[in-house]
């Protein structure tokens, strides 16, 4: 009996993942309706996903959350980079070129400010908490940019693996925090139009955080934020190990 169920879940892994996500969505939207906040449905679903990933991570000791549980490996494929990027690109369908042109300059400015700001904050906190090696400080600063930039900078500069792991954790904290708090602060930071969504994407930059945060706030804004955010990691991977490291090296 259990064998049959096991076989079903492992041979139909992607379908199982679709079913599980559908179940998470039904429960989350049901709960959102119950508390009269239907727009919070996707945010609740994302938090449920994170909680499940935490429980699974504790249980398996793995790094891929729910995807490390043998019954749910399909979640790794469904939530992986390939389908995520494929679906993100499709959200650009129906965008009016005029809106993009209007937000071009804010997009570029926010990207530059966003990468430098996150890097300086991350590096300053690393220095304040006692890190003295410029490579370590740069790596942790890179992690505050995104969880890709930290490891890219760390391996380029020869930082130790525990510092690289820390930089990934900093990036994950950023991504998770962005998903959770964006819907709550959206009205305070006036995140309600395509231009501010592009600025938001350029300033925060973590693609998953931006996409999740905007999806929970107003799904129509996702493509605008995702569009600038997608350049963020590339720009960070470029600036942090070069100019960023030179800056840190000059100070310490």
């Amino acid at each position, binding site marked *: 009996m259990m064998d049959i169920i096991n076989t079903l879940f492992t041979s139909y892994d992607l379908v199982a993942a679709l079913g599980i996500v559908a179940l998470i969505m039904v429960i989350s939207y049901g709960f959102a309706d119950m508390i009269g906040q239907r727009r919070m449905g996707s945010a609740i679903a*994302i938090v449920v*996903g994170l909680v*499940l990933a935490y429980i699974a991570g504790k249980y398996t000791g793995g790094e891929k959350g*729910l995807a490390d549980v043998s019954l749910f490996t399909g979640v790794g494929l469904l*939530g992986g980079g390939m389908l995520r990027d494929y679906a993100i690109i499709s959200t650009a369908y129906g965008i009016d070129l005029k809106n993009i042109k209007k937000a071009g300059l804010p997009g570029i400015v926010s990207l530059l400010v966003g990468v430098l700001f996150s890097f300086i904050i991350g590096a300053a906190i690393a220095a304040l908490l006692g890190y003295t090696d410029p490579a370590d400080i740069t790596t*942790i600063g890179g*992690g505050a940019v995104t969880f890709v930039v930290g490891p890219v900078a760390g391996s380029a500069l020869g930082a130790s693996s525990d510092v690289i792991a820390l930089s990934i954790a900093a990036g994950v*904290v950023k991504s998770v925090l962005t998903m959770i708090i964006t819907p709550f602060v959206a009205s305070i930071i006036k995140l309600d139009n395509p231009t501010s969504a592009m600025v938001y994407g350029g300033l925060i930059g973590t693609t998953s955080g931006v996409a*999740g945060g905007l999806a929970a706030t107003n799904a129509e804004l996702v493509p605008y934020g995702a569009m600038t955010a997608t350049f963020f990691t590339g720009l960070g991977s470029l600036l942090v190990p070069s100019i960023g490291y030179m800056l840190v090296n000059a100070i310490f």
Partner: protein
Amino acid sequence: MEIYGLGIVALCMFVGSFIGMGLGNLLGISGNVGGVGFAMLMLILVTNHFEKKGKPFSKRTSNGILLLSSLYIPIVVAMSARQNVVAAFEGGAVAFLSGGVATIGALLLVPLITKLTIKENNE
């Protein structure tokens, strides 16, 4: 046909990622620099081009693209379910503080930059 829509997005993804990876190579960093962004730009340019010519995608072709974009939020949920959340919690104070302060600070900069650049645009 619906598959045409899926194919158009796939084509944009490959061309965009090709540009992104080429750019990464040029800059000497392994990886895909803004590939998804290039692909999105391409999809926008292609659809706007056909609309201008008075030949927008057929209903069924656009259904294929809309199916994909409607799957976007469920995919984000799956993505959050496969993050290393335990590591984020156990990363210690440095991870929490640097990630957290950078996020909150950047969020607060959003209205500032929006206002600033819109002013510049109007001048």
